[in-house]
């Protein structure tokens, strides 16, 4: 092969290898913003930045995600649809807690009409909506902390 072709293909191969790496990183990047049921905390995208401001008053906003603010799973988010969310140590819970103070089936969040309700499923240590112990199903307003053992979750728009 002529020397020029050798050199060009040599450089070309290295370029191809790095293109693969870049393409992979591009997938990683797009994946950061892609929807998935559970997400870890991300740097806010443009859309996310706008939302908190308009949310200010709370008001008529619909909760769209559940976010864990304290505890071992802090930063976990679950996008809400209208299916109930089971919380507890059981493997098949929606949010599987690994918390010494949580019960196997601890609490359930479910949607009635347009509101979300939290109910305690007979847990040992109780479920708290803000400071109040949940004995009957309670409506969960936006941004009010629900305490389960050492884990605190909130509903966010």
């Amino acid at each position, binding site marked *: 092969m002529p020397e020029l072709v050798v*050199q060009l293909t*040599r450089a070309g191969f290295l370029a191809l290898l790095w293109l693969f790496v870049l393409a992979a*990183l591009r997938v990683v990047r797009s994946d950061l913003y892609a*929807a998935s049921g559970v997400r870890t905390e991300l740097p806010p995208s443009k859309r996310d930045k706008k939302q908190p401001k308009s949310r200010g008053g709370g008001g008529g906003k*619909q909760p769209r995600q559940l976010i864990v603010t304290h505890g071992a799973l802090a930063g976990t988010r679950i*996008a809400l649809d209208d299916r109930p969310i089971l919380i507890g140590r059981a493997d*098949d819970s*929606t949010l*599987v807690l690994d918390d010494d103070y949580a019960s196997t089936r601890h609490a359930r969040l479910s949607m009635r009409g347009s509101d979300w309700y939290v109910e305690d499923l007979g847990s040992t240590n109780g479920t708290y909506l803000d400071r109040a112990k949940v004995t009957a199903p309670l409506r969960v307003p936006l941004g009010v902390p629900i305490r389960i053992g050492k884990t605190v979750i909130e509903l966010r728009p």
Partner: protein
Amino acid sequence: MSSPVDTSPGTGSGPTRKLPTRRGTELLMLAFATVIITFALMLVDANQGQELTLSIVWYGLSYLGVFTVAHVAVRYFAPYADPLILPCVALLNGIGLVMIYRIDLASAERAAQQDIAFTPDAPRQVVWTVIALALFLAVLVLIKDHRTLTRYAYTCGLLGFFALALPGLLPASVSEVNGAKVWVRIGPLGLQPGEFAKILLLIFFAAFLVSKRDLFMSAGKRVLGIEWPRPRDLGPIVLATGAALAIFVLLKDLGQALLLFGMVLMLIYVATERAIWIFVGLVPFAAGCVIAYNLFTHVQQRTRNWLDPLATYDEPGGGYQNAQALFGLGTGGVAGTGLGAGRPEMVPLSKTDFIAAAIGEEIGFIGLASVLMVYLILAMRGMRGALAVRDTFGKLLGGGLAFAITMQVFVVVGGVTSLIPMTGMTAPFLSYGGSSLLANYILVALLLRISDAARRPQQGGRPRGEQQKTPLSDTGTVLVERPS
């Protein structure tokens, strides 16, 4: 692939929400990897003065075909799995194959000059790849949910220790190759059970730590500002680690010992979230290093080779290998000699432990760095799956598996580049060797399974979710709004 589909959780509500499975991206990346591998093969043949024929295209296509089968299996059995893991593995495996083929060409030439019989390794590695992919499919099909593995945790642990000890128990004629007793050879077939033991033990340790995690976290006395767990909870794991290390030292395979110890330490750290465990673990590690150094002459030799490969160049078992690897990397320089234009066969064991040196010589620092980047992306995606999965066993297992890859690459590339003393270990997916390839494909299948569980929508496809819903969540609870 670039459109950040369905970003905000807001659009994600509603029962018919469909998550992108991103299998298309995977296929695209696989095709890209195929192009790179075919190009590499072409360059090798051209630079080695082989005739360029259409057969290369056929090789490339069959490579793509084999991985397309794996892709279809993933599409079917783990539709939400990570789209990058398989292409990264395919690329690494392909580069390894090309490199082995390339060293085969050089060795064949040399063998022809000296009139010795020569059997090429590349076809065998191809066969191993196909077998490994079959095993990969089997794991994906059989293990529908990684949590079922916890049921077999103690079986896995027992099997793992047995597999580790097996070569040590067998006579040296069956188990010893190049001074390391890690083989089980039956006729022409040789396997290193230690490679599989690694995964089995990882499953065992992950499950064990999950069941005992509470005790690690809360029980125990506070001494010197550290909460020590009760000895009877920590006992088994210390014992297991000690036993594994003893076995490894008896087998004279320091690389595996290092890997196992690193994995256990990392699992404890992930399980307890306490950095103090790393430091606590480093003390026995340092002690072990000192003991091993004083007990075993080959450890002293390895250390001397590492400190100054040229000083021990001529000694038997001396710095010859390390020096040759460094010469190779030096010859390659920044941009490499070009595929097929270097002399990677000069490095001993260039198909297995020293394949990083061969790659570094032919595609240079730029190429070797890109290969390491691919490893990094692979490990990162594994870790990401582990982070996002919702159960602790999955988190520990995924993190451990991803860490195992990282640790292996660090130990082997660190050894080749003389960053750390050389310990015999294969580079995952790159090196020639059936056991390593089989074991690492199983590892990848488990990683895919975990990442699939992580990205799968919550309730659909959960094995027990459906049954469970009726008795508990739909029982007659009355919703009463509390008067506020």
